[in-house]
C-alpha cells in the first residue's frame, strides 16, 4: 500500500513495486491452457444457451456462492447514490487524465461527460433525484476531486494513457467470452513506462479484492500479448493506493479461477442444482431474507 498514487509512480521510476516481467513463452502456455480447458468446457454448454460472458463479478460471484450468482445474474441492480458517485468519479479521473487538470466544477463536468456518452439511465436517475441527493453527490465528488488533486501525479501524454479500454477475449469458438473494462491503462509498448493498469474505486481501500486485480492483469495479458507489471487501485474515498505486482504465478492463479468459474457456470446452465455457500457478499444478496446460510454468515467466517 502506498500513500499516494504520485508516490507509487515515484517508486516505479526507481524500479520498485513492479512484478517481474512475464516472458512470452509463459503467456503462450497460459493461453494454450485456457484455450484447451475453455474449449472443452464450452463444448458442454447446452446448444440453445446464449454465449457465456464471464465478467469479473460473474467469476467472483459463482466461486463465492452458486445460488447467489444465479440470482445476481437475473437482477438488474438499481442505481443508487453510491453507484452514481462511482460513475461520476470515473468521469472525473478520465477528464483529469486527458486535460491534466481537475475541473473547477467537477459535478457539472462529469454530467457533461455522461451526456456525451449518452448514458441515459444515469442521466434520468440524476434528473429524478431529490435536491438533497444531488447536493450530497456534489459534496462527495468535490471531496474526491480534492483527493485526486492531492494524490495523483501529472499523467504525461508520453505514458499513452487510455481510459475505459474494453477487452473481450473469445474462447470455444466464441461460446465463452472473457469480458472487462480497464479504468486506465498506462505505458507499455513504445513508451518508457512499464505496462500498468490503474483501477479507480469511489469508496475506500478496504473493499479491494486481490483476485479481481489478477483478473484485470489476465485480460490485459491475453489481449495485448504482454502482461502488466502491476495493477494499481486508487481509492477515491480515502485517497489510498493499493498495488498488486503481477507475476506469471498471479496470472496462472487468475486463469485457474476463470476455468473453475466457467466450469461451474456451464454446469449450472446445463441444469445442475446450485450449491449455497456463506461468504461476505451475503450481506448484499437479494436472497438474504430467505437464505438461512447467508443469514448465519458472520464477519469472522472470512
Amino acid at each position, binding site marked *: 500500500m502506498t500513500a499516494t498514487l504520485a508516490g507509487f509512480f515515484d517508486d516505479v521510476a526507481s524500479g520498485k513495486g513492479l512484478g517481474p516481467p512475464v516472458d512470452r513463452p509463459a503467456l503462450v502456455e497460459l493461453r494454450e491452457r485456457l484455450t484447451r480447458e475453455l474449449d472443452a468446457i464450452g463444448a458442454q454448454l447446452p446448444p440453445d444457451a446464449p454465449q457465456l460472458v464471464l465478467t469479473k463479478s460473474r467469476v467472483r460471484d459463482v466461486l463465492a456462492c452458486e445460488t447467489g450468482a444465479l440470482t445476481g445474474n437475473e437482477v438488474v441492480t438499481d442505481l443508487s447514490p453510491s453507484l452514481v458517485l462511482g460513475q461520476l468519479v470515473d468521469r472525473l479521473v478520465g477528464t483529469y487524465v486527458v486535460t491534466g487538470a481537475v475541473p473547477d466544477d467537477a459535478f457539472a463536468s462529469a454530467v*457533461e461527460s455522461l451526456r456525451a456518452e449518452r448514458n441515459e439511465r444515469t442521466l434520468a436517475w440524476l434528473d429524478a433525484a431529490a435536491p438533497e441527493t444531488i447536493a450530497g453527490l456534489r459534496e462527495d465528488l468535490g471531496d474526491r476531486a480534492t483527493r485526486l488533486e492531492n494524490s495523483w501525479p501529472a499523467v504525461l501524454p508520453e505514458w499513452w494513457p487510455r481510459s475505459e*479500454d474494453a477487452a473481450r477475449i*473469445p474462447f470455444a469458438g*466464441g461460446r465463452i467470452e472473457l469480458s472487462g473494462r480497464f479504468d486506465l491503462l498506462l505505458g507499455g509498448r513504445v513508451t518508457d513506462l512499464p505496462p500498468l493498469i490503474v483501477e479507480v474505486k469511489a469508496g475506500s481501500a478496504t473493499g479491494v479484492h486481490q483476485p479481481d486485480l489478477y483478473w484485470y492483469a489476465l485480460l490485459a495479458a491475453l489481449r*495485448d500479448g504482454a502482461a502488466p507489471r502491476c495493477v494499481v487501485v486508487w481509492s477515491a474515498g480515502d485517497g489510498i493506493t493499493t498495488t498488486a505486482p503481477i507475476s506469471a504465478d498471479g496470472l496462472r492463479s487468475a486463469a485457474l479461477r476463470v476455468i473453475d468459474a466457467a466450469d461451474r457456470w456451464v454446469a449450472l446452465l446445463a441444469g445442475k442444482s446450485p450449491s449455497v455457500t456463506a461468504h461476505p457478499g451475503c450481506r448484499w444478496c437479494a436472497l438474504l431474507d430467505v437464505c438461512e446460510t447467508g443469514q448465519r454468515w458472520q464477519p469472522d467466517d472470512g
Partner: protein
Amino acid sequence: MADSGRGREWRGRALDRLSPLVADVDAPRTTLSWFGVLEQLDALDGRDDEPFRWSALKARRQIGLPALQELSAAAEDRRKMTPLDAVTRVVERMTAVGREGWADRDDAKIEDWLRSIGDGGRAAATRAAVTWVTACRTQVRWPPHDIRARDEGNAYATIRKDVLSLSARIDFGPWVRPGVVESNAPTPRTPVSLGYIALVRAVECGVLPQAVTAIHLASGDRTQVETTDALLNDILDLCADAITRWAERA
C-alpha cells in the same frame, strides 16, 4: 497487384445476379451498408430505431482516423507525437468550426456536436478517441499504409443507379489489401463481412482486393481473408437474399 481480370469478372457476375432483382423496384434511392444487408436478413441481434445522434463512442472513429493520420505524418517526419497529442489536435480543429447548440439536432455534424457538449463532454470524446487510437496504433503495422479518414475510405457498388447501392468502409491499407478496424472480437460472421468489402470494391471499380484484414481492438486479434471464389460466391448469395427482401419491402 490486384487482379483486374478477376475483378472485372466478379463485377460482371455480381451485377448480372443483383441488378435484375431491383429492375422493377420503384422506391427512393437507398444505400445499404453491411449492417443494412444484415438487417434485411433479420440477422442483427438488436435494432436501433432511434435517429442517429453523436456520442463519444460513435465519434471515436471519426476523430480517431484523422488522429492516426497525424501520428503517421509525425512518424514520417520524425516528429514526436502521442495519441493524446494527436486526438487533442483533431478535437480542437473540429470544435473550432462547429456550431454551438447542435448537440441533439438530427443534422448535426461531428464538429457541431463537439462544439456543443462543453469541456466535460469534449473530455469524454477525447478519452474515447485516445483509447481507440492507441489500440489501433499498437495493432496496425506501423507506419501504416493509407489511413482513410472521413469519406476517403467509402466504397459504393451501384446496383441500379437511381435505386440501390451497396456501401462499405475501408479504414486503412492499400486498395489491394484493405483493412478495417473492428471494436469487437472476431465472430463467425467476420470473414463474410470482410469478403463483402471486397465484393463492393470489385463492383465499384472492377478491381478485386487480394485480401481484406480486420484488426479487433477488444481482443487483440487480426482476421485476414483471401478473396477466393468460394467466399465471394457465399457473399453474392447473401447479398442476393438481402436485396430480394429489400425489393419486396420497398
